[in-house]
C-alpha cells in the first residue's frame, strides 16, 4: 500500500512508467536513527536538495545531549525533520507524514508523533533481539504487521533492509562491513530523493567535496546514494512518487541557512558596515558553539576569535576589545549568561558597545542542552545586580538571525551599551530558505569615535575672559549626546582624551568616581532613559489583522513566530478573526505597543516558558495578558495553539468556535496556506 | 608632591614619624627632621603621629612656614637621594637657614 497523504491539494497522475505521480502541496519527513547513523547529514542533504528545487521549507534537527549515548537506545536517537512545500510555510510541522526509522529505538521514540496514515520506512536490518531489548520492545513490532494487534496498524509501513542492500551495493570498494554499513544513510537519502523527485546533483557535488581525499569512501557513498534511488525506481514496494512544486517566494537569490550561520554572518556584516573589527570572546557551549566555529573561519574580515578559559573571561576579553575600539561580542547559552552577568553590569556601567548572544536552551542549570526554550528572557532583562537595563533583541526565524545581529550591533554602537540577543536552540540549528540581502542595503553603523576634547575646563573658561579661545581642553567621558544620551567613545591611542572608566558609580559628565546620592539617582535614571530612548529609533510594530475585525491579539517573540503564524492561519481558515504581532525588541518595547494592546479585548502570549513576556506586558501595560506556555524543549505545535486561540476567540466574541480540521481534528492536522 | 616638616620640629625631633614612614625617607638633621621630597610617596603616615603638628602635605603648608618646602628640599641638594634613613647619618648638619635660627622656646620641656 502506498502512503496516502491527506491534504487539500493532492492530485494523482501516472508518470511515464506505470507509477502514479501524486501532487502534494507539502510534506513533512522525519529521518530518525542512532546518533551514529548520520541522520543530521541525511536531513541536511535532503533539505539542500529541496531548497535548490525551489520549495519553501523549515527544518527541525533534534539530537541527544550526549555525543554518543549508548548505541541503539532511546536516548541515543537523533532525528531531523524537514517540512517542504509549494507555498510559504512557517514551521517544521507538528507531525511527520513520513518517518524513516533506522533502528527499533528510532521507531519507538518517534512513532508517537505520527498522525494516522503516516508512512514509515524501516530499516529492518537492526531489528535484532538485542536492539529490540535496548529499545524496550518485548516483541518485534515488525513481526506483528497486519495482525489484529498490530501496534503499527494505523500506518503504512514499508520494511526495507537498507543496511543489507547498502553493504551489497558497495561491495566493490572492499570496505569493512562496518564502514560499508555506514553508507546506509546515503541509501536512505537516495530512496527518499527518488520518491520526492529531488535533484541529485547537489548531493553528488557535496559528497565529492567532502570525501575528496578518500576515494573508497566517496565511491561507497555515491554508490549507496544511487543504489537507493534505483531501488525506488525498480522495486514494487513503492508504487507512488510525489511531486511538490516549487514555492512562489518573493523574487531574489536564496540559500538555505541555519540560525547560527545567519547570526555569524550578521556579526561579520555588522563589522563590515561599522568598519569595526569584530572581536569574539567565547567559551564553548551547546547550542552556541557553532557561532564560535563559524566566526573562527572568517579572520579575513578582521574577525578575531578568542576561546577563553571560561564564560567570564570570554565577555571580559570582549569588553576589553570594545574599550580598545573593536565590536566586542560574546556568544553563549543560558548557563553562560548567568556567569557573565557581573561583566554585563560592568559594560552597562562603563557604557561600552557589546553584543551578548544567548542561544537559549532548556534550563535551569545544565537542563536540556540540545533542546530549545525561551526561559532566559527575564534573565536577560533583570539578571544583574542593581538597575542595569540592557536592550534585548530577538530573531524570529533562522534567516532572521542575520538582520537581528546587525540590529543588535546598531543599537550597541549607537547607544554605547551591551545588547542581549536572544536566539534559541531551534533557531540555531533549524533552517529555512533565506533571501540573501544586498550588502549595500544593510544599515550603515557609525562608531563616531571621539577625536577631540569636549569640555572647557575652568582654566580655559577663565583664560577666555582674558582673550583665550575658551575652546574645550579636556575630555569628559560621560558628557552625553542629548538625542541618544550616548556617551562619547574615545579609544586608547587618541591623544588628549586619556580617561579612566570603571564599575564604580561615576559623576555625570566628568566621569570621576562619585558617591553622591543625588548623582547616583541621576545616573541610574539616565542609564535607564538612554535605553528607553532607543524606542524612538524603532519602526512601528506591524500587526497582521487582515480583516480588521479581530478581538484577540496573539503576541510573541523569538522562534515562536512560525508556530504562532501557522496557528493564526488555521484559525482564519476556519473562518475566525485573530490578529498577530511579533516583537523583535523586548527592551525597550516599541513605542506603539501599548496602544496596540489596548485595541484588543484579549491578548494571548504563547511562549516556551512559564510566561515571561506575559509578566513583562502585564507589568508595563497593565494588560491582562494570557499565557500559552509549553516548556517541552520543542517548538510549539501549531494545531494545539490554534485550538487555544480558537477558544479565546470564542470567549472574546461570545461565540462557539470549532476549528474542525483546522485544529486538532482529523483529517487535516497540517500547517495551512495563508488566505491570500 | 611631598610632605614637608616645618618649624615646630626644630629642636623637638620626636622621631615618631620616622618609625611610621614606610619608605624611610625622613632624615635626621642636627636640629630638625627633613623629608626627602623625591623619596616621599605622599602616603601621609607621618602627619598624624607628629606630636607638634609639624608635618604638612606640600599643598597645605601654612603660609607663614611656606619656605620649609624649600628648606626640606634644599637639605638634600648635596646629599641627593640617599635611599633610606636607616643607613645614613646626617645628624651633624642642618640647612644653613635652620642652623641660624634661634633656639625654640621650651624645646626640651
Amino acid at each position, binding site marked *: 500500500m502506498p502512503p496516502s497523504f491527506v491534504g487539500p491539494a493532492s492530485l494523482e497522475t501516472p508518470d511515464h512508467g506505470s507509477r502514479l505521480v501524486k501532487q502534494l502541496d507539502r510534506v513533512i519527513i522525519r529521518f530518525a536513527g542512532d546518533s551514529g547513523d548520520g541522520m543530521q547529514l541525511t536531513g541536511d542533504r535532503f533539505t539542500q536538495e529541496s*531548497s535548490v528545487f525551489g520549495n519553501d521549507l523549515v527544518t527541525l534537527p533534534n539530537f541527544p545531549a550526549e555525543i554518543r549515548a549508548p548505541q541503539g537506545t532511546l536516548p541515543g536517537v537523533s532525528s531531523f525533520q524537514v517540512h517542504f512545500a509549494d507555498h510559504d510555510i512557517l514551521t517544521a510541522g507538528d507531525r511527520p507524514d513520513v518517518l524513516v526509522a533506522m533502528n527499533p529505538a528510532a521507531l519507538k521514540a518517534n512513532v508517537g508523533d505520527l498522525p494516522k496514515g503516516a508512512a514509515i520506512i524501516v530499516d529492518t536490518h537492526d531489528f535484532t533481539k538485542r536492539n529490540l531489548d535496548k529499545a524496550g520492545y518485548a516483541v518485534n513490532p515488525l513481526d506483528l504487521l497486519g495482525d489484529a494487534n498490530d501496534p503499527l496498524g494505523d500506518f503504512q509501513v514499508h520494511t526495507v533492509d537498507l543496511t543489507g542492500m547498502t553493504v551489497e551495493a558497495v561491495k566493490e570498494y572492499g570496505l569493512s562491513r562496518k564502514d560499508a554499513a555506514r553508507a546506509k544513510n546515503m541509501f536512505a537519502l537516495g530512496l527518499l530523493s527518488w520518491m520526492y523527485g529531488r535533484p541529485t546533483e547537489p548531493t553528488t557535488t557535496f559528497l565529492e567535496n567532502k570525501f575528496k581525499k578518500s576515494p573508497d569512501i566517496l565511491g561507497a557513498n555515491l554508490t549507496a546514494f544511487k543504489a537507493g534511488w534505483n531501488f525506488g525506481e525498480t522495486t514494487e514496494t513503492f508504487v507512488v512518487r510525489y511531486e511538490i512544486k516549487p514555492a512562489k517566494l518573493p523574487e531574489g537569490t536564496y*540559500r538555505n541557512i541555519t540560525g547560527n550561520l545567519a547570526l555569524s554572518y550578521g556579526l561579520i556584516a555588522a563589522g563590515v558596515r561599522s568598519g569595526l573589527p569584530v572581536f569574539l570572546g567565547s567559551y564553548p557551549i551547546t547550542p552556541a558553539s557553532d557561532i564560535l566555529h563559524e566566526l573562527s573561519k572568517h579572520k*579575513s574580515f578582521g574577525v578575531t576569535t578568542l576561546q577563553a578559559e571560561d564564560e567570564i573571561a570570554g565577555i571580559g576579553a570582549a569588553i576589553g576589545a570594545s574599550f580598545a575600539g573593536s565590536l566586542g561580542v560574546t556568544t553563549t547559552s543560558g548557563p553562560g549568561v548567568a556567569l557573565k552577568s557581573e561583566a554585563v553590569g560592568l559594560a552597562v556601567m562603563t557604557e561600552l558597545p557589546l553584543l551578548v548572544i544567548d542561544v537559549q536552551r532548556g534550563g535551569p542549570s545544565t537542563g536540556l542542552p540540545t533542546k530549545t526554550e525561551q526561559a532566559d528572557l527575564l534573565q536577560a532583562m533583570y539578571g544583574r545586580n542593581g538597575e542595569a537595563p540592557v536592550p534585548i533583541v530577538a530573531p524570529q526565524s533562522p534567516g532572521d538571525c542575520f538582520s537581528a545581529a546587525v540590529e543588535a550591533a546598531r543599537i550597541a554602537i549607537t547607544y554605547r551599551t551591551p545588547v542581549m540577543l536572544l536566539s534559541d536552540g531551534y533557531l540555531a540549528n533549524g533552517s529555512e530558505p533565506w533571501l540573501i540581502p544586498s550588502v549595500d542595503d544593510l544599515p550603515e553603523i557609525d562608531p563616531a569615535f571621539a577625536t577631540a576634547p569636549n569640555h572647557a575646563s575652568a582654566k580655559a573658561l577663565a583664560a577666555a575672559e582674558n582673550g583665550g579661545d575658551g575652546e574645550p581642553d579636556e575630555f569628559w567621558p560621560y558628557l552625553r549626546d542629548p538625542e541618544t544620551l550616548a556617551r562619547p567613545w574615545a579609544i586608547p591611542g587618541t591623544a588628549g582624551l586619556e580617561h579612566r572608566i570603571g564599575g564604580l558609580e561615576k559623576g555625570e559628565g566628568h566621569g570621576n568616581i562619585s558617591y553622591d546620592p543625588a548623582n547616583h539617582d541621576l545616573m541610574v535614571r539616565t542609564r535607564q532613559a538612554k535605553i528607553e530612548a532607543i524606542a524612538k529609533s524603532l519602526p512601528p510594530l506591524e500587526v497582521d489583522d487582515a480583516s480588521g475585525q479581530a478581538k484577540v491579539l496573539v503576541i510573541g517573540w523569538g522562534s515562536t513566530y512560525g508556530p504562532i503564524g501557522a496557528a493564526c492561519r488555521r484559525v482564519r481558515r476556519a473562518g475566525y478573526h485573530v490578529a498577530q504581532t511579533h516583537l523583535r525588541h523586548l527592551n525597550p518595547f516599541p513605542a506603539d505597543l501599548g496602544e496596540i494592546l489596548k485595541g484588543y479585548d484579549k491578548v494571548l502570549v504563547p511562549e516556551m516558558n512559564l510566561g515571561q513576556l506575559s509578566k513583562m506586558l502585564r507589568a508595563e501595560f497593565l494588560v491582562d495578558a494570557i499565557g500559552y506556555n509549553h516548556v517541552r524543549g520543542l517548538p510549539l505545535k501549531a494545531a494545539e495553539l490554534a485550538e487555544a486561540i480558537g477558544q479565546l476567540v470564542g470567549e472574546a466574541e461570545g461565540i462557539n468556535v470549532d476549528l474542525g480540521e483546522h485544529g486538532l481534528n482529523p483529517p487535516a492536522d497540517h500547517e495551512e496556506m495563508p488566505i491570500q | 608632591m611631598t610632605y614637608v616638616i616645618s618649624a615646630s620640629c626644630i629642636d623637638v625631633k620626636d622621631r615618631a614619624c620616622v618609625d611610621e614612614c614606610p619608605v624611610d625617607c625622613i632624615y635626621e638633621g642636627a636640629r630638625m627632621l627633613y623629608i626627602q621630597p623625591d623619596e616621599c610617596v605622599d602616603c601621609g603616615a607621618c602627619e598624624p603621629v607628629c606630636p607638634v603638628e609639624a608635618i604638612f602635605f606640600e599643598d597645605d603648608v601654612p603660609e607663614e612656614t611656606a619656605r620649609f618646602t624649600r628648606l626640606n628640599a634644599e637639605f638634600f641638594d648635596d646629599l641627593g637621594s640617599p635611599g633610606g634613613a636607616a643607613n645614613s647619618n646626617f645628624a651633624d648638619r642642618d640647612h644653613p637657614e635652620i642652623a641660624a635660627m634661634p633656639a625654640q622656646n621650651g624645646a626640651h620641656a
Partner: protein
Amino acid sequence: MTTIDLGTPSLRSGTESVPAADGPQTGKEFTSDQEVRWCPGCGDYAVLKAVQSFLPGLGLRRENIVFVSGIGCSSRFPYYLDTYGMHSIHGRAPSIATGIATAREDLSVWVVTGDGDALSIGGNHLIHALRRNVNMTILLFNNRIYGLTKGQYSPTSEVGKVTKSTPMGSLDHPFNPVSLALGAEGSFVARTIDSDRKHLTAVLEAAAAHRGTSFVEIYQNCPIFNDNAFDAIKDSETKEHAIIPLVHGEPITFGTRDETTGLGDKALARSAGGGVEVVDTAAMPVEDLLVHDAHNEDPSTAFAISRLTDSGYLNRSPIGIFRQVQRPTYDDLARAQVNDAKTKATQAEGNDTDRLTQLLNAGDTWNVG
C-alpha cells in the same frame, strides 16, 4: 587532530610596537587630577610613586598606555594615572587586558591586581593569561590580606592567621604567587618590594621590556589589616638575612657579606634530591654555588628557588627576576593569523564588502522570479 606549525615570530621587545613619545615626559604628566585615597602609610603609595616616576622613562606615548585593574584597594591604581584605564570587576582584569592587548598591538597594557583579586576570584584568568603569554605586565600587590573588605585572610595569608573571618586561625595553605606563575609557565616572573624603589623600578623596566606576560609580585605592606607582614625583609637589621637576592649570572648568596668576596655567608646550591637548598657559603667550593640563570628554558630551578619563600610569617624570601625567557605571545600570533588571512583574501577577492557579498551568496543558491 592535526596541529599546524605556526612558525616562530620574530622576538621583539614588549613595547616595540607602541608609538614613542614626541619628547621627554615627566611624572607629573602621568599623574591624574584624582585625589589618592589609600590609608596613610599604605604600601600602594610607594608603588604608585615608583610607577609614576618610571613611566616617563619608558618613552611611550601616554595615550597608548592602558592600565586595567580588578577590585581591591590596590585596584584603585588606574584612577591615579593619566593614561587610559579601566577599573573593572573583581578578578577579571587579566581577561579584559587580554582583549585589549589582542585587539591592539600599539598599546602598552598593564594589569594591577591584589592577592585576593588575582589568586582567589581571578585565579583562573591569571594562570590562563600566563599560559597564553599575552603581551602585558601584571603587577600583583601582595599584602597577604583582603584590604578593601577590611581584613579577611587571603590566599597568601599564612596558616593560622587570625582575622575577622578566621577567629581561631585560618586553615588553608597559602599560594606562593611566584611558584604558581612558574607552574603556569609564565615567561617573566619576578618579585619585588613596595618600599625598595630602586629594585621595584629595575624590575618594572625589565618587565616592560619583556614581550609576553610579565608577572611581578610586589610585597606590599597593609598598615591597617596586616601591618609588619614584611618587616623581616624591610628592616635594615634583618633584611640581609631575609632576602635571597636573585641576579642573573651571579651566584645566589645572602646573609652577612664578606667584604672581599662580596658573597653572603649563606648560599644556594643544588640539593641531593634535585632541588635547591641553603648552604653555608664557606662550606662549599665557590664553583658549586648555584648561579642564577633567569634565562633557563626549564623552569624547574626557578621553581625550586621560589620554594625557599616562607609560607608562614615571612622571614625569608627570594627577591628578583626568577625567570625571563622568550616564548611567542598569544596576541602576536592571533594578529598574525588575522592579518595573514585578511591580506590574502583582499588580494584575491577584493574588499570586505565584495567578499561579504560573495560569502552570503556562497553554497547552494537558487533564484526566484
